[in-house]
């Protein structure tokens, strides 16, 4: 298992020399933390009697989401939950970018052959690459979530909303669904990039798998569905099944000889 760590360190020292990848890693979490905080700040400062939103002004499905929150609180909570869905893009997109560059890079430099000539096992190689690609994404998600939570508290939003922010729903989403998403993202990106020669093409194809999340975002914005505890739990269970399937498929897909002869 020592070699898995050696691979991870090699991947990081390589990939962090790539400005484009580094940019994505830094920019995306920053953006996804900044936007909701700024929005919260503005809705929060307007939190007085004049501009208070009456619960009745909100679309009907909000009542289900908000329960006993008042209008403004409900609006804030809505914004928070809406952006937390966007947060889930971080453990998807970062690992995808990482994995695409790592696999395509290895193909371009023809380093797979000397690497597979060493007594490393295929499992160690793939585990090293997958972990190297997913760990930064997962950590960035957690970090961004932490910054967001702290920021939301400092911006003094209603205590009712604050209570909701520590809802197990979001903890599950961030700490369980996040890593599960990262595993799926990495397996998909690795399979795709083993078949293409441009990291960006790999990213673009992999990006199709981001669509379900975007669908969730739009779904909630338009009132088609609500991101509630049940949905998150279903999503998490779905992800576990998906990951198990992807990993089983990947072990067939990434046979030692195929890596060398089919990854062109």
């Amino acid at each position, binding site marked *: 298992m020592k070699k898995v760590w050696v691979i991870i360190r*090699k991947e990081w020292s390589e990939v962090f020399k790539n400005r484009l990848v580094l940019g994505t890693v830094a920019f995306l979490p920053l953006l996804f933390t900044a936007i909701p905080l700024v929005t919260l700040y503005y809705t929060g400062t307007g939190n007085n009697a004049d501009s208070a939103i009456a619960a009745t002004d909100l679309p009907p499905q909000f009542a289900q989401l908000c329960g006993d929150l008042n209008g403004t609180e409900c609006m804030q909570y809505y914004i928070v939950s809406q952006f937390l869905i966007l947060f889930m893009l971080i453990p998807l997109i970062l690992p995808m970018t990482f994995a695409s560059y790592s696999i395509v890079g290895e193909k371009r*430099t023809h380093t797979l052959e000397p*690497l597979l*000539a060493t*007594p490393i096992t295929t499992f160690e190689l793939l585990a090293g690459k997958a972990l190297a690609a997913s760990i930064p994404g997962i950590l960035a998600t957690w970090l961004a979530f932490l910054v967001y939570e702290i920021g939301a508290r400092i911006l003094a939003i209603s205590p009712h909303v604050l209570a909701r922010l520590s809802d197990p729903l979001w903890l599950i989403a961030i700490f369980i669904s996040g890593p599960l998403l990262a595993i799926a993202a990495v397996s998909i990106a690795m399979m795709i990039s083993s078949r293409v020669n441009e990291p960006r093409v790999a990213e673009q194809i992999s990006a199709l798998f981001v669509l379900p999340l975007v669908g969730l975002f739009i779904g909630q914005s338009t009132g088609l569905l609500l991101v509630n505890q049940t949905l998150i739990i279903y999503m998490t269970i779905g992800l576990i099944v998906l990951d198990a399937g992807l990993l089983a498929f990947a072990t067939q897909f990434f046979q030692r000889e195929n890596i*060398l002869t089919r990854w062109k």
Partner: protein
Amino acid sequence: MTDNTQVSSQYAIRLQDLTKSFGETLAVDHLSVSIKRGEIFGLLGPNGAGKTTTIRMLSALIAPTSGTAWIDGNQLGKQDQEIRRNVGILTESPGLYESLSAERNLAFFAQMYEIENISESVEKYLRMLGLWDRRFEAVGTFSKGMRQKLAIARALLHEPNVLFLDEPTSNLDPEAARLIREFIASIKHDGRTIMLCTHNLDEADRLCDRVAVLKSHLLALDTPTALRRKLFGRSVVFHLHKTLPKYRETVKKYQFVKSAEIVDNKLLVKLDKPEEQNPILIRSLVQAGAEIQFVGELRRRLEDVYLQLIDMEKSQ
């Protein structure tokens, strides 16, 4: 079958009907060769002859379709991890991490090979190949020759008993190529067995103890000298001050002379045993009035042998 321990001590590499097909393409066809310990063995053949495929099979990178091989006593398909531990390979393209330094590249592979004294081995080979001063520079800034040297260093890091070199001097300038050739010759003395693929036939001639000419199946296998003799016999060149047609007749009257021809001021004579027959010819030529300036054996180039073999294969 011979006793396996005996076989493994005498031969470093033994191929038995080794075969590989990619779909319809038969890349390597029932190859059986035994290579002695300490030998430099050349693998020659046209593009697509299956040289790289053979090396890849022997270094446990791809599995044979049928047949097997023993490398340093380990059987292919059964002891692949052992094989990977004991062989070094210089792949067709150097395959280095461009954004990492020379030292980091070697250190990474040293860890993959589970080497104990990593910094020592890395330093040893960086120095041996003249890359020590540039060890902290990214490989992306290296010239082809430097990359090739670094890739050779990597192949040797774990002190393998068997070394596979796939076109070690292709794309290099004559000076760099010569450096690498001299280096290969020098590591032979450590008792390593080296299998060398090359299109440079002079290089094969100079370095290899034996060569195999391949075109998916084996066309010929022997020492370069023996191959020359098999294909062209032996020829002796007499440099004469003045060549007259009668000198040709002088030598032709001997039964052991297979052929004799005059080219410029040289008389070319094909013989079986020049060591015994030359003195007789020299005596007769002198008696006939010829002024002999030099006598020597005509050294055919390995290239001629190779082209002849490939031609023979084509006309079949």
